[in-house]
C-alpha cells in the first residue's frame, strides 16, 4: 500500500521548481551531483556456468536522485555549520600565545613560563582570507568570519530537514 500520494519524480520536480526561483546556484549544484550518476556492478551470463561481473556508470533513479538532492542541501546548510561549530569548540579549548620570540632574535621564555599565554575556554575569532596575497587586482575584500549559528536556530533547521527526509523516504 503506498505511503505517499506523490511519486519520487513529483517530489523532485516540486523541490527543483521551488529552488529554481529562489536559489538557482544551489539548484545547479544539485543537478550537477545528480548528473554525475553512480557506479554499479552488473552481471552478464557468458555461458551456462560462467557469470561475468563488470562495473558500469548509470543514472540515479528518481528516488535516489531525490536523496542526492537532499544530501547537497544537507552539506551546505547543516554540515558546513557543523564544521565551523567543531572548529570553534577546539579553538576555545586552547590558549593564545604571542609570536615566537626567537624569530626576532630573542629567547622563547614565554613558552616555558606561560606568563604571556591566555584565552583558554574563551571563544576565538577565526577568519578565512578571501583575497590571498597573490591576487593582482586587490579589491580589499574583508576576510570571512567563521560564525556559529545559534543552537536553537540550528536545531530547528535540522528538524525541518529531518521532516523533509521522512517525507521523501519511499522505502
Amino acid at each position, binding site marked *: 500500500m*503506498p*505511503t*505517499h*500520494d*506523490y511519486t519520487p519524480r513529483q517530489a523532485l520536480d*516540486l523541490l527543483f521548481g*521551488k529552488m529554481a526561483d*529562489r536559489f538557482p546556484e*544551489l539548484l545547479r*549544484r544539485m543537478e550537477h*551531483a545528480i548528473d554525475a550518476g*553512480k557506479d554499479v556492478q552488473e552481471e552478464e551470463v557468458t555461458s551456462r556456468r560462467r557469470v561475468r561481473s563488470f562495473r558500469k556508470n548509470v543514472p540515479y533513479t528518481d528516488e535516489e536522485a531525490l536523496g542526492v538532492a537532499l*544530501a*547537497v*542541501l544537507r*552539506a*551546505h*546548510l*547543516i*554540515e*558546513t555549520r*557543523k*564544521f*565551523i561549530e567543531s*572548529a570553534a569548540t*577546539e*579553538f576555545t*579549548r*586552547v*590558549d*593564545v*600565545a*604571542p*609570536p*615566537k620570540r626567537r*624569530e626576532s632574535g630573542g629567547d622563547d621564555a614565554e*613558552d616555558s613560563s606561560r606568563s604571556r*599565554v591566555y*584565552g583558554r575556554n574563551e571563544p*576565538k575569532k*577565526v*577568519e*578565512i*582570507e*578571501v*583575497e*590571498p*596575497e*597573490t591576487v593582482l587586482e586587490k579589491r580589499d575584500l574583508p*576576510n570571512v*568570519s*567563521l560564525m556559529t549559528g545559534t543552537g536553537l*536556530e540550528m536545531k*530547528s*533547521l535540522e528538524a*525541518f530537514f529531518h*521532516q*523533509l527526509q521522512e*517525507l*521523501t523516504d519511499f522505502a
Partner: protein
Amino acid sequence: MATLAELETAIDGLLAHPAGPGSYSLVRPVEDKAYEAYVFGLCLRAVRELGVNPLLRGITAAPTPFIFRGGPGQIHSQYRNYGYASFTLNNHEFEVHAGVEFVGSSGMTHELDVCVMRAADAQRCRANPDDPPCASVFGAWECKFYDQPLQKHLARAFVGLVDDLGSNVRLAGFCSNQTHNQLRDYFQPQRRPYPHLLLTPLEPASETRFVGVLSAELKKMTAA
C-alpha cells in the same frame, strides 16, 4: 499517507527558515577552508588528548583573529597575521599549519591543506624566508569538502604529492566529508595515504579514528 501539500509545506519551511539557504551565502572557497579549519581543530584535539596544550600563534602578533590562508602561501609570509599552532611533546617541538607550501623531493612545491611539521624547520624558514623542506613534515592531510560523491582524480593527485614528500613523512591522510565506493580500495596499498572518508561531525566515529591515528603516531615518534 503523506500528501504533496505536506511536502510543499516542508520544502517551503526549510527554504524560508532563518538559518536556511537565504541566510547562507554559498562561497565555495570559504566552505573548503571551513573544512580545513575543522581538520585543523581535530589536530588540536589529538594533541590535547596526549595531555599537551597546544598554543595558537600568529606570524607577526597574537592571532586575534586567527586567520586561515585563502590560498597556498609561504610559511614566512607576513602579508597577513596568518595563524598556526605550536606544541611540545616529550621535548619534540611541532607546529600545525594550514595552506603552507613545502618543497618536495623533486624540487617542486606543494601546498598541504593541513600539516604537522617540525618546529625547528618552521622557525628557520620564518627567520630566513624560505619554503620548508618536505623532510620537515610529520603529517600531511588533504581536505576536500564535497556536496556529492568524491571525484577519483583528487585521490590520485594526493597520492602523487605524498610520493614527492619523501619517506620522512610519518602520516598522510585524505580527508573528506564524502566518500567514493572505489577510493577505499585505491588507498589500501601500504604506502598510500590513510582514507579519512566521511570525516565529518555527523560521523563521530570517523573523528575518533582521525584523532586516534594522529595521537598514536605522535606518541610513537616522540617516545623516549
